[in-house]
């Protein structure tokens, strides 16, 4: 009986079952994949490219090709960054059904937002918007409202479903960029207004991303041993 009591106390002390939180384990594993800074750098590059796309306009590359061209670095970085930088250091993992369900909801909501945006842009182009909705360049309030509806809200949904907290900050920066560019326009004109504003709103996530990337590379170096361990496992 005495031996059993001692054994029981030992097990309770050593195991510390109450401290194990499975939800925390899953969240920690999931959030590790945002510590490489790749999504931050991607956001930064995308926003920066919006500011510099008009420069290509001046050399004869108009819309939409100028935007497509400047988006390319961000797209390539995202596509290859995870494969070349993150996965060889962190490994591969498939998350559970809850995360998959969140992704599916995100795809549905994003698709709906894209459709609404395209619809509004078509109406704008065809000058078919109802009276009273005056989307005129220089109308700051309208720019802010459109920016919130077409950028702020969708990006907030993405941040929520992907569980990427820093994206809320980047969303605020991007959403405020358009009205800020409107204000800058009266001081420095176009295209400098966009270049200045988007350099700031794109530069911040880019710098944050670079910080995370450097920290990540230092914490998870690839050694020859790491590369070949599976052959021994």
């Amino acid at each position, binding site marked *: 009986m005495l031996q*059993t*009591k001692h*054994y*029981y106390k030992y*097990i*309770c002390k*050593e*195991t510390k*079952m*109450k401290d*194990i939180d*499975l*939800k925390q*384990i*899953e969240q*920690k*594993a999931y959030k*590790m994949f945002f510590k490489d800074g790749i999504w931050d750098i991607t956001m930064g590059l995308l926003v920066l490219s919006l500011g510099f796309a008009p420069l290509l306009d001046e050399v004869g590359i108009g819309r939409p090709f100028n935007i497509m061209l400047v988006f390319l670095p961000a797209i390539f970085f995202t596509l290859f960054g995870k494969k070349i930088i993150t996965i060889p*250091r*962190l*490994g*591969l*993992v*498939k*998350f*559970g*059904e809850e995360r998959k369900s969140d992704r599916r909801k995100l795809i549905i909501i994003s698709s709906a937002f894209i459709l609404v945006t395209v619809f509004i842009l078509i109406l704008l182009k065809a000058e078919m918007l109802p009276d009273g909705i005056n989307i005129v360049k220089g109308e700051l309030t309208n720019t802010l409202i459109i920016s919130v509806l077409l950028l702020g809200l969708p990006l907030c949904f993405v941040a929520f479903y992907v569980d990427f907290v820093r994206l809320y900050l980047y969303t605020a920066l991007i959403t405020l960029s358009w009205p800020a560019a409107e204000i800058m326009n009266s001081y420095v004109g176009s295209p400098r207004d966009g270049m200045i504003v988007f350099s700031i709103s794109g530069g911040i996530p880019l710098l944050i991303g670079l910080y995370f990337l450097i920290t990540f590379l230092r914490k*998870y170096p690839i050694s020859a041993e*790491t*590369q070949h*361990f*599976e*052959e*021994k*496992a």
Partner: protein
Amino acid sequence: MKSRHENETPQSTIINIDKIIHEPARFLILAHLFVLESADFLFLINQTGMTQGNLSSHLSKLEKAGYIEITKEFVGKRPHTILKITPEGRKSFQDYKSTMKNALDNPPE
């Protein structure tokens, strides 16, 4: 005649606990695989902080007990080990958790 369950005391429940899962390292491995669909060897090394040899040894024991399945494949020319908890492993882990929770919440006097 009393049934087996009526005869169980908190002490006997603890003594009969699943010792495969009870080992802290293996518990940690199963806790990770329980919340994920699958993970590879490198991921578990990073999450658990174990050495390669240590992790391999524990994975072998868990595989032998039928709690995980290990799939080896090639990505290009490099071997790649994928780990997944089995339904039996999932159930055993849940049972282990319940047992320990009951034991901690209702300690013997």
